[in-house]
């Protein structure tokens, strides 16, 4: 469709998703994300937040509609080109999905190893990142030996370790205390300032107010409302959220 708007990182146009033959869990979803934006996705439990994020991190293809990501048509993109796209995205899964037989360190190192980064360039960044999320002393623990909140922080460290262009986080603060939630939010903001586009799904309304520059998408029973109109697709204004880089 339109390739006029320069530099959108994600475009959804009339996207619908149904699992199997059930009703659609997402209907007529259209929006645009711009590089450097900070987006919240809210909605009641079961509204379709995780489903929408799955489309975003390329774990799922929509039943209908068009999706463009990083300038490629994500619908027709051949399977073998998906990994390259996925490596540009960091994901915090709602249920963490840490690899159970790998230590916290090895879990965080995973995206770097998958990307073929040399071992000597892995050790320090991973250790630093774990220290930053307050897990320096739990580095060698297996996920099963960590508390829920600690696992969540490992999941977040793994999502951001390779400085992805887009970070997709599903309820990333669901299991941590308010102080840690704020701290993690600061991490996302810091990444955002460095140019990463951030999408956070949450039902914690207090979180929304913490990031003044953020844009909010609301999902209601699979339909997207966009109170500010900033996410409209096709966009009225090419880049609503200025030259953030």
């Amino acid at each position, binding site marked *: 469709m339109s390739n006029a708007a320069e530099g959108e990182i994600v475009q959804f146009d009339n996207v619908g998703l149904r699992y199997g033959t059930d009703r659609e869990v997402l209907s007529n979803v259209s929006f645009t994300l711009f590089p450097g934006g900070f987006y919240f996705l809210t909605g009641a439990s079961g509204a379709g937040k995780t489903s929408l994020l799955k489309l975003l*991190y*390329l*774990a*799922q*293809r929509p039943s209908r509609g068009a999706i463009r990501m990083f300038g490629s048509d994500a619908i027709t993109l051949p*399977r*073998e080109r*998906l*990994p*390259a*796209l*996925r*490596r540009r995205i960091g*994901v915090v899964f709602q249920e963490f*999905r840490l*690899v*159970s*037989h*790998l*230590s916290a*360190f*090895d879990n965080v*190192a*995973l*995206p770097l*190893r*998958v*990307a*073929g980064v040399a*071992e000597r360039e892995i*050790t320090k960044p*991973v*250790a630093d990142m774990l220290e930053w999320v307050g897990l320096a002393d739990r*580095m*060698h623990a297996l996920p099963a030996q960590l508390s829920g909140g600690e696992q969540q922080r490992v999941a977040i460290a*793994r999502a951001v370790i390779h400085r992805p262009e887009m970070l997709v986080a599903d309820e990333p603060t669901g299991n941590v205390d308010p102080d840690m939630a704020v701290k993690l939010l600061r991490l996302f903001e810091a990444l955002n300032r460095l140019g990463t586009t951030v999408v956070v799904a949450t039902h914690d309304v207090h979180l929304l107010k913490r990031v003044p520059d953020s844009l909010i998408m609301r999902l209601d029973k699979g339909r997207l409302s966009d109170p500010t109109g900033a996410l409209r697709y096709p966009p009225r204004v090419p880049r609503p959220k200025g030259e953030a880089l």
Partner: protein
Amino acid sequence: MASSLPRFVSPGAEAELIPQGRLSGPMPWVIAIMVALTVIAAAAGLAFSNTARNASDALTGGITVQIVNANPAERDRQAQAALRSLRATPGVVEATLVSQAEIDRLIEPWLGAPTGEGAIPVPALIDARLRDPVSGEMLGQLRRTLRDVAPAARVDAQSTWLKPVFSAIGTMRWLSIALVGVLAFALAAAVLLAVRTALGTNRETIEIVHLLGGTDRQIARVFQRAIGFDAAGGGAIGLALGLVVVLLLGKQFGGLGAGLVSSGALGWLDWILLALIPVVGVGLAMFTARQTVIRALKKML
């Protein structure tokens, strides 16, 4: 910090992605048994091929003339006459009288050492070699020629009395080859099952690595390498076992002292072929693992 370094010094430390132990289990032993059986079957096949080739080389142009006469003087006279006549016949490249000592040696195991005069009369033997494989026509012509000079001569092609032996050897050879094929198939099937199981137990890990941008090839490589290690270890053990059995069997057959068996002895090329079996086995196992994983991954987005 050192403990967080990869246990395998390999590019990308992909070996870390799935736990190695889970893949192993009985795999190396299954592979060891397969390789040992394959080595034995292949050695048998090679030995039978060698026997068939050497024996037929030696025998297709060979004829034996027996002079059966109880009177030693007459026997010798006819033998000399037959020898002269054979040497004069076109198409006969070589004709030699088998010496009495040689004959004694040949029959000793059956009839005991000759006891001088009055021993059981033994025919005189002439070993002749034709330029071309023996034909019935040629045999008939030789018989006619010899009838006049040596009436007591009986002419036989060496290959005729070995025909049933040859066909048995041929059957054994094909059997061995078929057995090698069946064993290769069984090995592939065993690997297939092992990899399927491993894919199942590691499904969540695979999915995560997949979503973090891991490619099918990367994930396949992890399994391929794990199976490769198993197969290499199992293959080495299997080769050793197989060779021990082959050497023991060889020794036992060698002890029979029969010419046919020693003509089936393995040459250096044969030993190299046997040593290549585990290498091919490792290759086959890794290829099977790779195909299985890739096919399973194709079903994921």
